[in-house]
């Protein structure tokens, strides 16, 4: 028996998952968890889409009565919360989970159990927030849930509690996910993949997760203060007792604006991945693109006050943040020029992922231009809380994040499933979505400039808003049809698409050098990298095959992975990766129970359930590593 056959047999034996019934609850495989993130977040996307369609149906004509004001408040709040927290961010985490270890030539994430824990907390927190609909008390205070509207006096029911406790619960997932991504990217790269050869998608993930590390605490503090005010009569946001409502806005937007980049940057990473592949040339200005990604994340922390220009802050404060808001266009501009230069100097192939990316560039530039308009304080104050704002952020977020997400879904679909999507349906879905989103959101600019305020459940006839609302509503149905075509295409192609092969697009990153779908261990031989486009380095990949024959860099003595040095990615140490475990789910569930007890004001029960959390932590740590179980 040759060495290669022996190595593959041993890897299969070592990494093969247990029986499916157990595997479902215990898996720590980043590919399985990544796919779960993608599917779960798509379900939340559908829910948010249904909420949006309901709102647009309500606004299709003046004085409509499809939904009442109370339901409408819950719909727009849950639409925002779902899109931001339960769809876009987790969807991009799903791509990261699936793709990052493959892109850097690793066998898993740095902390596989933490990865599973992160997913379970995400699912449970989503269920937690959505369960509020069962009692008709879904959050109704807008996705940023300002004080004093959120105070007990204004919202006595538990709507706000679902919001703030649910987000605190979800933040645990996002934070541990960020830790996991950063350590994985710094420490688990393939030998030779020095930082200046790191794929731009990974740079984008790195920038995103670093932003999350420093941005999320402000949201946690805001939610904590909100709950302390509501449940224990604290006075953070009550001016009569020395509190201040604007403090909430500061805290929220110190998180909120970096969160725009937490959403946007991974999407940018997808764009920087798709364009070189479908232009068949390396990205133009790799170093500048990587630096621009990090600079965007960094400057993103200095612009939060531009969400608060109408709150009466001192002029000098607003001038500073206005300048910072203009500054952020520079790294964004660098990226847009880099993408355009890559496409123009390459051989653009207009397949579905590339169409979505080009659509992104057009839509995002429009959203970016209106964003620059908001940096001008007098203009901002004029259109604050009007539909112009709604139009702007949908261009930025739908154009800037959701379009690249569709590009990513089509792009990596062959890798995930081993099958190709239907190209014709793909292109139809693109045009439906592109036309639908412009038809939905462009008229909102005009309605806003004509004075239509956001978050109204109806309006009077004769104000000049009717036709723009009608167009927006029809556009929303077209958009929904486009999303439905995407879903049908992917579901049908998963079963009946033609076989994709390892690298159907001749892409340049490492995930395309392993089979589609990849084996449980990702790579039989840990790849060695000597450029930023390793899949195009034919000699290096041939050398990987030769190493397999010699049994080099295969790490078959257990559930092993290789840690490398942070900067140069030289071999550091062989790691023993943890086995599958039920404890991440148990811990997530226990924490969910604690949050539920707090929600219903059963604090003694919450304390007792806290012991369950501790017990789960103990269980997690006493479980022996993989090779001990197999021995």
């Amino acid at each position, binding site marked *: 028996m040759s060495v290669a056959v022996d190595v593959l047999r041993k890897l299969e034996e070592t990494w093969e998952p247990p029986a499916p019934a157990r595997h479902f609850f215990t898996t720590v495989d980043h590919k399985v968890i990544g796919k779960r993130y993608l599917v779960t977040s798509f379900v939340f996307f559908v829910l948010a889409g249904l909420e949006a369609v309901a709102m647009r149906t309500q606004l299709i004509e003046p004085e409509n009565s499809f939904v009442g004001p109370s339901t409408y408040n819950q719909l727009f709040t849950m639409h925002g919360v779902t899109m931001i927290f339960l769809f876009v961010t987790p969807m991009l985490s799903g791509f990261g989970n699936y793709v990052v270890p493959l892109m850097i030539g690793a066998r898993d994430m740095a902390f596989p159990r933490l990865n599973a824990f992160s997913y379970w907390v995400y699912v449970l927190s989503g269920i937690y927030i959505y369960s509020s609909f069962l009692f008709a008390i879904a959050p109704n205070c807008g996705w940023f849930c300002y004080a004093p509207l959120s105070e007990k006096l204004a919202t006595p029911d538990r709507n706000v509690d679902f919001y703030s406790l649910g987000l605190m619960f979800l933040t645990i997932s996002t934070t541990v996910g960020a*830790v996991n991504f*950063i350590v994985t990217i710094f420490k688990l790269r393939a030998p030779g993949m020095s930082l200046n050869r790191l794929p731009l998608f990974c740079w984008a993930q790195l920038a995103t997760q670093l932003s999350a*590390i420093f941005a999320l*605490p402000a949201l946690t503090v805001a939610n904590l203060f909100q709950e302390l005010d509501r449940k224990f009569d604290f006075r953070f946001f009550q001016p009569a*007792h020395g509190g201040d409502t604007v*403090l909430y806005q500061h805290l929220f937007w110190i998180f909120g604006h970096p969160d725009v980049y937490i959403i946007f940057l991974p999407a940018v990473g997808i764009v920087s991945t798709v364009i070189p592949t479908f232009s068949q040339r390396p990205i133009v200005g790799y170093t500048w693109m990587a630096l621009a990604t990090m600079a965007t994340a960094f400057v993103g922390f200095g612009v939060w006050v531009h969400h608060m220009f109408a709150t009466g802050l001192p002029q000098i404060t607003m001038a500073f943040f206005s300048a910072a808001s203009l500054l952020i266009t520079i790294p964004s501009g660098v990226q847009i020029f880099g993408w355009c230069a890559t496409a123009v100097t390459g051989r653009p192939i207009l397949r579905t992922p590339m169409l979505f990316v080009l659509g992104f560039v057009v839509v995002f530039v429009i959203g970016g231009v209106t964003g620059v308009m908001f940096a001008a304080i007098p203009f901002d104050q004029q259109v604050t809380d009007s539909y112009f704002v709604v139009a702007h952020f949908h261009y930025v977020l739908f154009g800037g994040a959701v379009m690249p997400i569709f590009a990513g879904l089509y792009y990596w679909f062959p890798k995930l499933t081993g099958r190709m999507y239907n190209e014709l349906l793909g292109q139809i879905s693109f045009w439906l979505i592109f036309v639908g989103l412009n038809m939905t959101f462009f008229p909102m600019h005009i309605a806003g400039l004509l004075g239509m305020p956001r978050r109204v459940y109806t309006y009077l006839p004769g104000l000049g808003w009717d036709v723009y609302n009608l167009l927006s509503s029809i556009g929303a149905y077209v958009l929904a049809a486009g999303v439905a075509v995407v879903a049908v295409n992917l579901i049908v192609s998963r079963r009946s698409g033609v076989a994709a092969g390892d690298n159907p697009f001749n892409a340049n990153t490492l995930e395309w050098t392993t089979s589609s779908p990849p084996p449980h261990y990702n790579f039989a031989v840990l790849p060695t990298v000597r450029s930023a486009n390793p899949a195009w380095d034919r000699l290096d990949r041939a050398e990987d095959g030769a190493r397999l024959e010699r049994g080099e860099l295969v790490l078959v003595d257990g559930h092993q992975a290789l840690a490398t040095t942070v900067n140069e990615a030289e071999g*550091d140490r062989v790691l023993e990766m943890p086995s599958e475990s039920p404890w991440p789910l148990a811990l997530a569930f226990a924490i969910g129970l604690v949050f539920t007890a707090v929600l219903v004001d059963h604090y003694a029960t919450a304390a007792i359930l806290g012991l369950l959390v501790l017990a789960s932590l103990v269980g997690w740590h006493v479980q022996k590593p993989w090779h001990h179980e197999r021995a």
Partner: protein
Amino acid sequence: MTTVEPIWTRAETRALGWWAMLLVVATEGTLFATLLASYLYLRFKNVVWPPAGVDKPQVLLPCVATAFLLAAAGAMFLAARALPRARVSAARAGVAAALVCGVAFAMFQFLVVHADWGEFRPSGSAYGSIYYTVVAVLWAHAAAGVLLLGFCLGQLSRGSFRPVRRAALEVGALYTYFVAVAALAVLLTVYLSPQL
């Protein structure tokens, strides 16, 4: 089957857990920075701080409590230096000392809060709200640190599996330094700055 692996001699020495803890410290440090910034924000929004009827915070006991945490950090520093030199008993003694200091901090801090509780409540004013919140968050972090140090001590008491116990010690030491620095920042902001 014989497989050929390079000999990994570079060993950057830091366990993955240490890198994870570094990031946890970064995010928790940001949490404290946000809390203290909120404290200062509310302070400068109020002309009288602490509000009328509430005395300035006590100084001596909080200083003593913080000193215990600084001592815990020192003990963990010595323990972390001892283990790579195979002085396991010295490392164990260092962790045990840090553990005792952590418990002492928790007790002293409890005495401080107990005395304050008789004087003012969080529901009385924004000052009370932010004061008790900051102190409770610090106390919770110290309590988590005590649990972590207990885990380190358990690892050091086991005979085998050296890399794991070294990683646990590195992680525990890093967290202890962080809590000590956070306590110092809380002392300066919440207890000493109102004296100025």
